[in-house]
């Protein structure tokens, strides 16, 4: 029997909007109803536009409405991107004629697939280009839906600076003219979201990947000195090991499950295994599978996830607020959107050295808090 319980990963329309909305001089117009507008607007910390179509525009056409909406967009936006939602995509009204010639028109209805499908289509429409004169190292994998994006960006910039490299284009969170002039090398803070251009030096998720990525940058970019980065990863490694040893002197390793995008979830599982000898019961991926050293399955439906949690009874759950609600007795660390029910104001990273430190800090504290609660 199919699992029809509510899916937990956003649709392609939301993914497309999340990608395009990162470009500060691009006005993103959601061509759809207020119902489709409110969800991405509730998650994305930037202003979005919408045609807010009503029944009559579906019947009589929405060209007048487009003229009205386009006229209200401030001139500070250099270009416009229109993302069509489900009904306009089905109706297939020809709207190109009312859009400026430079406008991006993206067909990304929710029924076409998940978040990554829309994000990928949007990035392809932005068409990031290479400028061989550009010396900066691009930072990719940024996604405004991701609660770690601003922290990841800060941390990636910090590490590049530490190595004497220049941060290049932030894909896709720079003005349009910079998107068209990316450097040749890229580091990624989330490999689930390929940059669509240039050579990826590697990921900044986890201390080992950071070292490997910076080693490659050091080999390829003249003047880059990776020794400060390597020294900092060594110090971070020591600090984590000391904290983990102290924990393991008192407690058994956690039995953990991790739910999230595949790259983040694998990073979390690998980090828990490496430092806490955690028993990784499952990596439940929201967005497809690649090779994994851990038991891994694509798990997107809340019914399947709830059933797994109540069957396995893990004592550490890494995931979204859905998983926290589904298995409230476990220690919980937020990794995956949505992270609801908590106030999140500061920039928190998952990538980079600070990201690994931050993740382990949260995991250790969550596990210790749970143990204390159990012991009373």
């Amino acid at each position: 029997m199919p699992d029809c319980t509510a899916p937990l990963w956003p649709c392609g329309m939301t993914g497309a909007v999340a990608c395009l909305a990162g470009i500060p001089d691009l006005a993103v117009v959601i061509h759809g109803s207020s119902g489709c507008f409110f969800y991405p607007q509730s998650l994305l910390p930037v202003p979005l536009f919408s045609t807010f179509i009503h029944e009559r525009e579906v019947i009589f056409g929405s060209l007048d409405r487009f003229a009205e909406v386009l006229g209200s967009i401030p001139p500070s936006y250099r270009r416009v991107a229109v993302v069509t939602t489900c009904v306009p995509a089905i109706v297939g009204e020809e709207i190109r004629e009312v859009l400026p010639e430079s406008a991006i028109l993206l067909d990304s209805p929710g029924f076409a697939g998940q978040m990554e499908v829309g994000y990928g289509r949007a990035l392809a429409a932005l068409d990031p280009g290479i400028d061989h004169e550009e010396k900066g190292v691009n930072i990719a994998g940024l996604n405004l839906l991701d609660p770690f994006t601003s922290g990841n960006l800060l941390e990636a910039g910090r590490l590049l600076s530490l190595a004497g490299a220049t941060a290049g284009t932030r894909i896709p969170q720079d003005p349009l003219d910079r998107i068209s002039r990316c450097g040749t090398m890229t580091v990624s803070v989330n490999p689930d979201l390929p940059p669509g251009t240039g050579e990826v030096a590697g990921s900044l998720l986890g201390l080992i990947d950071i070292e490997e990525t910076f080693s490659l940058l050091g080999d390829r970019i003249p003047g880059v000195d990776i020794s400060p980065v390597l020294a900092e990863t060594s110090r971070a490694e020591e600090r984590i090991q000391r904290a983990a040893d102290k924990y393991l002197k008192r407690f058994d390793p956690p039995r953990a499950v991790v739910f999230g995008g595949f790259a983040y979830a694998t990073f979390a599982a690998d980090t828990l295994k490496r430092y806490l000898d955690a028993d990784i019961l499952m990596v439940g991926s929201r967005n497809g599978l690649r090779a994994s050293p851990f038991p891994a399955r694509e798990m997107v439906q809340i019914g399947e996830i709830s059933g797994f949690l109540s069957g396995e009874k893990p004592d550490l759950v890494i995931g979204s607020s859905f998983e926290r609600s589904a298995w409230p007795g476990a220690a919980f660390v937020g990794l995956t959107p949505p992270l609801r029910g908590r106030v999140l104001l500061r920039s928190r990273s998952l990538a980079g050295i600070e990201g690994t430190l931050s993740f382990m800090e949260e995991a250790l504290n969550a596990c210790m808090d749970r143990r204390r609660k159990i012991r009373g």
Partner: protein
Amino acid sequence: MTLNPLPWSSFRLEGCTLTGGLSVTTEVTDGVTIIHGPAGCSQHNASLIHATLLDHDTPHLLRIHSSDLDEVGVIFGGEGALAACIREAAAGDPSAIFVLSTCVVQTIGDDVGGVCRRDWGVPVISIPSSGFLGGGFQDGMRNALIALGDLAGDRVEREGGITLVGEKNLEDDVEENFREVSRLLALLGEKVRLRFVRGIRGADIPEISRGRLNILREPELRAVGESFAARFGTPYLDSFPVGLSGSLRFIGETAGFLGVDPAGALEEERAFQDEALAGFEDLRGERISIGPSSGDTADPFAIELVSSLGLLLSEDGVPLPLPSPPPVGTGGLVRLLHRWRRVLHA
């Protein structure tokens, strides 16, 4: 300042029937709601409602299912996907299955009612909704309340007590508003017997016919009040209390419906209001401006509050926020005044 460029015409901003319907049906805790449409619609709404539950400190999981209509379903029809989803939901033996349709389903023309009318072994209720094509949030909410009322049957056994109808389950202060209404009712020696629909089980639904008075959350739900009045003979008050004099009027009107003397309750509430306002004496004389929370003119409750506190309305005064919908009862005004004080003293 908000950076969010929203249009002035509020009818475009109402959200879709789906969210309105879901805000009702998901509060039948042993029922299942199926969203017939693309998975994204379920994810959007489940995420928004889940966030609200967490904000309300009720972190249970919603029983929302999705027929997960994909591109193939859009082209060839989604009735098969809906039937498979109902079959799966029915296997869990819910008290009822509520089916809400999306705009996609309306556009492709599935016969949702026909699928729901098959014998599934549990009640399967098609709530009139078609995403934004079926109206807005309020329409979805209204339709869901009336459809759930239909589940109560026609037998009326009057037992007394008050029923709250159509609480706004997604508003931040839904529980605070409930407590405020309960406080005012307690002044008359009355209790809420049923919250229709908030945190009830399927077996509780017939209780809708048994109360002496229905109190609607807001006047936009009058069609629901009329429906239940015609069906069960239950009179209704068309709104939760708004404003200082509105709270007193609420007591008086409720007492009128119940046939009790409101004098003592009114005296107590007047004293409560005097004491509450005395706590904001420091605001007297402040120059402020207020806009309408909705519509074109400033809300009477706000004008009354400003006057009672001795605030000075001025075009160049400090603009103060007004919530929409307006605060409930005297307690809601006190919370609003704390926000005003924060703005004035920031």
